């Protein structure tokens, strides 16, 4: 028993030690420390925060290690949990100390390893030793992790006390009861009233927020909104009708370029105005969807994905090519795209665009939702589930697959038009493969086939990276970690799709009523 205690704790300690080592080598501690400093409103110069925040980072990691180790203890013994936490913290601390010694050697000899590891400047290494003299620095690195490990163990042990557990349960029960009460109130006879109040509050928020929170937030949330429209469109194709289309961003490009070519002084100076160009963009994108779909109808799964991926790249390379330079502006893209007007008044401030995007999102959500709960939606779902059987049930699979492609592409055309007009610029590199993959990832992360999932996914994948500018270098790391965690804990996405519970009319009990199902039309 004691042996397992030791070996398990050791393993946790080594794991966390290695994680710590890895994060140190990529400078993650400095980045997270800067974030803490930001939150605490402490100004800093350069990328290296004050030592106290680096200590905080180490302590958090240590507490986490201690907690993970102590959680593994089955017996509800106070001491054993403490010991486990301490062991894990000590081991992680030892590894940290070894790294610190290496840092210390490098610092004292003024050897700069940045040639091999870009973040390891002398300043950074000094900061990692908490700006202390060498020996104290190493000791502190060890001490903080070990102590925090012990603290983590203590925390776990405390939380398993029945009183603490009880308090937590009471609290959870209270919250749950409150939610139930709210649900009861909002679902009973006051249902309509609450719905109206909710909608009014939402409408007020939508109306007033864009004017209040400034152009930066309008830009960030606007981008998220564009991606929500894209996500919903792709959800029609992938989530409902089950066709894995990878070159989806090509339809976005068609919408954007239609807007650009018809509404910019260069290269054609057509100046159709925003609304006709937007409408034409939507129609052209839908048309492109059908054109792409026609030869694809016999392909399924991986083959479909590869061919559509090719389509996306063809569109991008065409836009970029010398051949089309005089027509599409080539690799330089198209600048000075004119914004929309309403009744002759310009409607092109960032707040106006925010309203426009919100309008687009609402329309997309509305259409998506209505399609999903209809004969069309059920036909799509049946194709996703089993295409052969869907056909044998009388679903014209070719027609419905084309319809899904066309409608999904139309959503992308809408998003593209608004996007190009807002940015006053569009170029071929905005429509690269990575954008397609982004849209696909956001619906997978959010949960395939439902609206809340799409919105959440768009925030997670487009909003968070914008908000966490400091994370810039670590975006892919955080993204990978997010995907791994998600696949482990929520393999169907953050908000998995649920099938609707249809209102069943009263159960016809007698056989007499069965006979009413007349067989002859």
């Amino acid at each position, binding site marked *: 028993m004691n042996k397992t205690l030791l070996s398990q704790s050791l393993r946790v300690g080594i794991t966390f030690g290695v994680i710590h080592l890895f994060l140190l080598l990529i400078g993650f501690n400095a980045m997270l420390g800067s974030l803490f400093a930001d939150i605490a409103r402490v100004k800093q110069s350069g990328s290296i925060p004050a030592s106290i925040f680096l200590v905080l980072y180490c302590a958090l990691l240590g507490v986490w290690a201690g907690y993970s180790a102590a959680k593994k203890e089955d017996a509800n013994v106070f001491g054993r949990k403490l010991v486990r936490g301490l062991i894990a913290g000590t081991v992680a601390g030892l590894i940290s100390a070894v790294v610190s010694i290496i840092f210390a050697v490098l610092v004292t000899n003024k050897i700069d390893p940045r040639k091999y590891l870009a973040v390891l400047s002398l300043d950074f290494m000094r900061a990692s030793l908490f700006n202390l003299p060498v020996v104290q620095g190493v000791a502190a690195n060890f001490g903080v992790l070990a102590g925090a490990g012990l603290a983590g163990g203590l925390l776990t042990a405390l939380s398993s006390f029945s009183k603490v557990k009880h308090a937590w349960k009471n609290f959870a029960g209270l919250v749950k009861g409150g939610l139930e009460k709210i649900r009861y109130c909002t679902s009973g006879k006051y249902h309509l009233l609450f719905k109206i109040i909710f909608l009014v509050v939402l409408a007020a928020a939508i109306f007033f927020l864009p004017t209040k929170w400034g152009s930066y937030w309008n830009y960030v949330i606007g981008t998220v909104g564009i991606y929500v429209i894209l996500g919903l469109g792709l959800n029609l194709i992938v989530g409902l009708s089950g066709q894995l289309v990878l070159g989806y961003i090509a339809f976005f490009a068609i919408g954007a370029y239609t807007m650009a070519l018809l509404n910019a002084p260069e290269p054609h100076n057509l100046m159709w105005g925003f609304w006709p160009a937007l409408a034409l963009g939507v129609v052209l994108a839908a048309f492109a969807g059908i054109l792409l779909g026609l030869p694809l109808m016999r392909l399924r799964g991986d083959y479909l994905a590869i061919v559509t991926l090719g389509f996306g790249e063809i569109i991008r390379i065409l836009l970029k090519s010398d051949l089309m330079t005089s027509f599409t502006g080539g690799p330089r893209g198209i600048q000075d795209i004119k914004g929309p007007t309403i009744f002759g008044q310009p409607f092109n401030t960032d707040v106006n665009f925010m309203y426009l995007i919100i309008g687009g999102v609402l329309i997309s959500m509305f259409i998506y939702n209505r399609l999903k709960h*209809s004969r069309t939606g059920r036909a799509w779902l*049946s194709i996703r*589930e089993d295409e052969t059987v869907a056909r044998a049930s*009388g679903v014209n699979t070719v027609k419905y697959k084309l*319809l899904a492609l066309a409608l999904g592409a139309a959503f992308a055309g809408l998003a593209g038009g608004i996007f190009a007009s807002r940015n006053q610029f569009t170029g071929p590199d905005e429509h690269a493969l990575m954008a397609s993959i982004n849209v696909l990832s956001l619906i997978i992360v959010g949960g395939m086939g439902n609206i809340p999932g799409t919105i959440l996914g768009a925030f997670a994948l487009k909003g968070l990276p914008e908000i966490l500018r400091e994370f810039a270098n670590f975006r892919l790391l955080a993204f990978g970690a997010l995907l791994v965690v998600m696949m482990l804990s929520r393999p169907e996405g953050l908000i998995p799709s649920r099938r609707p519970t249809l209102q069943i009319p009263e*159960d016809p009990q007698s056989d007499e009523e069965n006979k009413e199902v007349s067989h002859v039309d």
Partner: protein
Amino acid sequence: MSTNIIVTNKVTKIFGGLTAVNQVDLEVKEGSIFSIIGPNGAGKTTLFNCISGFYTPEHGDVLYYDVSIRGKATNNIASIGISRTYQNIRLFSNLTAIENVMVGQHPRLKENWLDAVVHSPRFKREEKTSILEGIKWLNFVGLRGIANSPAGSLPYGAQRKLEIARALGSKPKLLLLDEPTAGMNPQETLEMTSLIRKMRDQFNITIILIEHDMHVVMGISDHVAVLDFGNKIAEGKPAEIQSDERVIEAYLGPGGAALAEKYRRKKAS
């Protein structure tokens, strides 16, 4: 009652070098229960697939009310009144039971995607009636109160019944059942048998049945055809089939007929 609903005329289906169905002639009377039996690999399901449009036969023709349906698209065949179930259950398992039946009703409904977006009167009418009818079909096959459960989570017997309810959704004139009692216990088999009879009696649906359970076959069939290695080796009333030597040999091997005779005598004495 005397018109033929389905006639297969020398239907032949070849896979590479294997002739799975060889010049099979069948005539199925409207309103009858017609069983197709035969050892494993005899080509029964292949014949089903030729009728329902999954395969196009290399030679021969399939006539539905005297009109050829050979080579027609599967979904068109479904919408003119031929439904089927599958040997290994193939439900839309992530959809609810009622949604499965509503997909089955697909060819009879008219609403399109624009109706759905604007919620036109046609949409509202059709959605309402299709739910009502779906529930009635579920009740008819004996599935009450599970309308909103995902099809994949239902017990085995219920899934078989749900497949039938889905097939009934299109109000078919001809129903092809591929081993409807496979894997069922005696009680469930009994229920299934009476359900098959009820479908024919109440709605005058013609039923073609592939079945291995001889009690079921002999109990409810009006007519039985026997396939072996793709050839039709016998056809007739259940009683005639039971004593047909070639049939017994197909099942028991050469000399089987004599063996069966011996067994029958022993049992009688």
